[in-house]
């Protein structure tokens, strides 16, 4: 159908200047096989359906480790579906199914032998609206994943470390026993990020993590993404194109279930190869 779906181009992060902590990423590569560092995530011919609705059409892309990829596109374009396939959360929706190859460190996530419960420990997720467990304290929210997965060690230490990572520690260190609901929306979202980080996932999926937050809280989340990139591979879905431009190394543009174009964020926003991408990022539609 369209040449861009077949070519996957990976170029090192274009935002090195801002990204002082980032470890060097593999240089430009055309095929993953030739890479010095193999891709963290490799998506090949991914199709997804909701009942009879064909929501994703043959998506191909590659995400290098310790980088941020943003998925943009108008509502209903398939970007959230794409994200949910990566930790098989799509299976929770009745009638939803996905076909194709989704390689995480070379292992096909969609394989029948892969247990989605164990997969989700390696691929964490942060949702559109903060969803802390309402009856648990701040500390227990962060430690929830540790308990669920039977991870031992000093939980208090892990709680402190992940709360520091998510830039929330200073605001909550004196009231760890308080309910998670006593926090503001932005704090709750950072708590949810801490909760996701506590189980040390390799990939972090963020589904419009700042869309319910005010600009200041949004800026904190974006700063956090920059920090986290040094350790995690992050995929973020966003409606906010400025946000995509600010936080990501690569951007993928989805439209009506097709991956129209994927490439370095700078290129997508300044010199896209596809007319539709250009129209979208310049605000002509969407």
């Amino acid at each position, binding site marked *: 159908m369209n040449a861009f779906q077949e070519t996957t181009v990976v170029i090192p992060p274009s935002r090195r200047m801002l990204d002082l902590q980032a470890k060097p990423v593999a240089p430009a590569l055309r095929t993953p096989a030739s890479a010095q560092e193999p891709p963290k995530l490799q998506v090949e011919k991914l199709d997804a359906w909701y009942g009879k609705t064909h929501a994703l059409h043959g998506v191909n892309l590659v995400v290098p480790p310790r980088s941020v990829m943003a998925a943009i596109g108008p509502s209903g374009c398939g970007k959230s579906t794409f994200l949910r396939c990566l930790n098989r959360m799509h299976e929770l929706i009745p009638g939803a199914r996905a076909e194709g190859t989704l390689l995480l460190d070379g292992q096909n996530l969609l394989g029948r032998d892969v247990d989605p419960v164990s997969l989700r420990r390696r691929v964490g997720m942060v949702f559109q609206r903060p969803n802390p467990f309402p009856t648990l304290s701040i500390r227990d929210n962060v430690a929830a994943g540790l308990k669920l997965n039977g991870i031992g060690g000093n939980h208090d230490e892990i709680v402190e470390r992940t709360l520091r990572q998510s830039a929330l520690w200073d605001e909550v260190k004196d009231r760890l026993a308080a*309910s998670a609901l006593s926090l503001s929306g932005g704090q709750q979202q950072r708590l949810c990020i801490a909760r996701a980080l506590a189980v040390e996932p390799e990939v972090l999926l963020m589904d419009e993590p700042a869309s319910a937050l005010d600009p200041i809280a949004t800026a904190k989340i974006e700063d956090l993404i920059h920090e986290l990139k040094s350790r995690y591979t992050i995929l973020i879905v966003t409606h906010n194109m400025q946000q995509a431009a600010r936080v990501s190394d690569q951007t993928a543009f989805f439209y009506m279930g097709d991956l129209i174009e994927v490439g370095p964020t700078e290129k997508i926003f300044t010199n896209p190869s596809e007319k539709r991408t250009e129209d979208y990022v310049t605000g002509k539609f969407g």
Partner: protein
Amino acid sequence: MAIPVQARSGNVGDRTWAWVTAIFGGLLLVVAGLILLELGRVAAPAWSHIGIVKFLFSSDWDPVQEKFGALPFIYGTLVTSAVALAIALPVSVGLALFLSEMGPRSLRTPVAYAIEVLAAIPSVIYGLWGLFVMVPWLRSPVEPFLAKTLGFLPFFQGPPIGLGYLAAGVILALMILPTVASVTIEVLKTVPPALKEGALALGATRWESIRIAVLPYARPGIIGASLLGLGRALGETMAVTMVIGNSPEIHASLFAPGYTLPAVIANEFAEATGDVHVGALAALGLVLFGITLILNAIARILVEAVARGPRGARA
């Protein structure tokens, strides 16, 4: 154009409506108050003849000799309701969880419909079924089996008669199940999907997500559902009278026959002779009223405590 200072004429309708609703609301309080007053007035001869403390805490009930002690009935009411809730609550929560979280969607509507049908069966039918089907079944094999396996507990000792606290509790459990289950199903529907997804995304299994996200969120609602069921169990008369054995005694064993407050009122009121006997029955009514009130208050405190969550929540 200035906004007119004079209220719009439509306000007459508003004011009338406000009065009409206030009258309806007030009427409810007035009726409840009158019932209480009347019960108190009828009960007065019994209070003065026996004394409140002796009435509440003695266990002799012999209308012929004008001995009236309410304890066997209070005990019977509380025990049968507790047995009913102990059986109905886990079953209801399990049923509701199965329907809303685990089971196939196609099963939801038929099962919900079946639950409604269960609620529509008249209590005398439950009583008949209990008397002819359930009581013989309890007599053998259920009660002998319980005596054999759990007989070291005082609740499961003595001869397996069939009629008794256990029979009343089981029949009450069946009768309150529809209420508790259907309210619990509605409560579980209010759990935000994002909460479940949050747990699943952390690597929780389905059961773990229910335990960590669904049940804690739904807990106040489930307590409320149990309370509704308990209210029905406390006041249920017909079916209980038919299977409890109607004997004003106190036994630790659930196999033994007993009596409840509503059952004794229904059985003896028509034949009661003398102000004291009638008064004693009215006083039992007041006691039932009081028990319901106290349990309601406890449940309300519980719901609020649970809804508040850990310390300092919702500051």
